[in-house]
């Protein structure tokens, strides 16, 4: 049935390319969103905003100098409070970072042999902000190093950031838009398309041929994967050339997560199309599922800004993990090793939803 499979892939690609609506909604919309949000919020040099408390235990000349430099660091807003309060608000996600300059910092700076140390507390669970935070601290310290010493670095930062590039809002936004694109293309796209094909008896007509449902679904998946990969690539290219967004991680890893996201949301789309009582209700149901996901999936703003009770939900659903994974790879060069949590949660979602989709698939109207 190779012949049928190839024809189905070809047909789906042609249908996609020729249907103006699907084309506009799935490609122009993300690009438009990126440009609109990027111009409105991204600004030219506006940095990603981090709320930070700096605790100076040393109170020496050099420690004060460091604190001043950090306060002036781009994208950093400092909140003055006691160490205890600072750590408490960090736990509550009200702060993204607490920097502690320990006692003896000044002495260490003055000494030739000892290295001065600062401690950075941050939420390890939130990969993107922690990496950005580390990058900003590292950058500031690097500057001071260069200023006070000619060659040898005098201050070391305990937690080393992987990425030392400056991240802007666009860097944050583009992976989110990719995740949104993958979700809406597949969940909403598949649910609407399958339901409409069922309504117009297109599926029943195919059921009247020796075509197997397995071949049909395989053709659908292949075509949609191709479409999504090309779209993701176009979005990244536009983001790169207009907003200077870079992919710091491996393209292979990025591709893997695009595929995994596509397959997961496509399976959920198939389930929605199968379970909807009437074909007309499939699209609204898919919308009802995906719309809230837009806001709690970390697409436009970080998940940490959401209230506590939503955090559990966010951890359970696939969209947040897809955004985290894409953001990790694009912004911080994350690898499979550092993306274990999103990887396994997405894989589980895919396997479960694919199984349910395969079991509930039907050609005709109930």
């Amino acid at each position, binding site marked *: 049935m190779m012949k049928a499979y190839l024809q189905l892939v070809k047909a789906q690609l*042609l249908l996609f390319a*020729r249907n103006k609506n699907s084309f506009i909604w799935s490609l122009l919309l993300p690009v438009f969103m990126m440009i609109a949000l990027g111009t409105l919020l991204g600004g030219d040099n506006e940095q990603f905003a981090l709320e930070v408390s700096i605790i100076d235990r040393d109170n020496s000349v050099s420690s004060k100098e460091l604190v001043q430099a950090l306060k002036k660091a781009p994208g950093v807003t400092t909140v003055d409070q006691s160490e205890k309060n600072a750590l408490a608000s960090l736990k509550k996600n009200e702060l993204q970072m607490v920097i502690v300059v320990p006692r003896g910092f000044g002495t260490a700076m003055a000494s030739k042999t000892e290295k001065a140390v600062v401690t950075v507390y941050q939420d390890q669970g939130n990969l993107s902000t922690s990496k950005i935070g580390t990058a900003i601290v590292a950058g500031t310290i690097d500057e001071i190093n260069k200023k006070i010493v000619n060659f040898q670095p005098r201050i070391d930062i305990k937690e080393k950031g992987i990425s030392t590039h400056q991240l802007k809002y666009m860097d944050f936004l583009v992976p989110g838009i990719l995740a949104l694109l993958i979700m809406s293309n597949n969940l909403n796209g598949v649910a609407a398309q399958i339901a409409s094909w069922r309504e117009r*008896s297109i599926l029943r*007509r195919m059921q*009247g041929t020796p075509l197997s449902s397995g071949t049909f679904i395989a053709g659908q998946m292949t075509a949609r994967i191709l479409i999504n990969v090309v779209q993701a690539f176009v979005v990244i290219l536009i983001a790169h050339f207009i907003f200077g967004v870079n992919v710091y991680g491996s393209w292979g890893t990025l591709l893997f997560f695009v595929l995994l996201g596509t397959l997961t949301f496509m399976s959920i789309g198939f389930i929605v199309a199968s379970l909807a009582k009437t074909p007309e209700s499939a699209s609204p149901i898919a919308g009802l599922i995906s719309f809230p996901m837009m806001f709690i999936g970390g697409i436009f703003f970080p998940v940490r800004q959401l209230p506590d009770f939503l955090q559990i939900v966010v951890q359970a659903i696939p969209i947040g993990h897809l955004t985290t994974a894409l953001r990790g790879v694009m912004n911080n060069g994350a690898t499979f090793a550092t993306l274990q949590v999103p990887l396994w949660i997405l894989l589980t979602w895919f396997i479960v939803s694919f199984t349910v989709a395969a079991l509930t698939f039907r050609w005709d109207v109930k």
Partner: protein
Amino acid sequence: MIQVQNLTKRYGNQTVVDHISFEVREGEIFGMLGPNGAGKTTTMEMMEGLRDSDEGKIKIAGVDAKKQKKKLKQQIGMQLQSTSLFDYLTVRESIELYASFYPHSQTVEELLVAFDLVEKEKTWVKHLSGGQRQRLAIAIAVVHDPKVIFLDEPTTGLDPAARRSLWDIVLKLREEGRTIFLSTHYMEEAEILCDRIAIMDHGKILALDTPRELIRQLATTSRVEFPLIDRAYDEKFSTLAGVKKVVRLEKNLIQLHTDQLAETLQDLIPLANSYQFPLDGISTRTATLEDVFLEHTGKRLSQ
């Protein structure tokens, strides 16, 4: 070619197809005539293996349609009531897609020529006329050169010219030796196309024969119809020469069934004169399948 025995389908406590049995002979056009909701489509979909029946046996070209669905689908071709084609594929692409589902198929060129679609091969299905779309649907039904073809109301919604050209195509398919099972609610279509007709209503087959025989079996051969609101004379009509039956149709139409048309009319005119009722809109005709349907179901097929 096709044997159906005791076929039954229920939805909840409603029986949509009620223990029907019939045979379709090889090479004939077998018509199922009935109004919407009579159970025609459900019957066809059970025969096509698209719907499970609750009771009964279906055998098509030696294949058990309920148990050997995969084998059945190689043997039969079908056109469904709704268009069921992709709007954004061209005629050629649609044929190629369906051809790929079968191990062997006719060439696209042969089909384009046979169904008069050569000029439209690069047109999207979306932009085809109703007639062209139905021709394509039937071309796709025979893409794998099947012995048996199911056509579900193939000319519904078509204009008269498109309907005639589709009839030619169906007749040509019979010439090629195929067995055709078609459903319709057009009496004229059944009369012109079908070798034999099953009249169906409320899930039951009420009569089954050749069109000529069905008409011949009617008690009377002619009909006289005219509008008359006043019901006072209905009894008098039955005493007119040759009249065997007086029927009140909808819209205050009265219908006289007669074997002696001329005599009936000769009696009718003086009657109308003496009681001062107009015979405006009077019509006479020989009995048709429509009357056969009316006789069996008590209602008209086309409204």
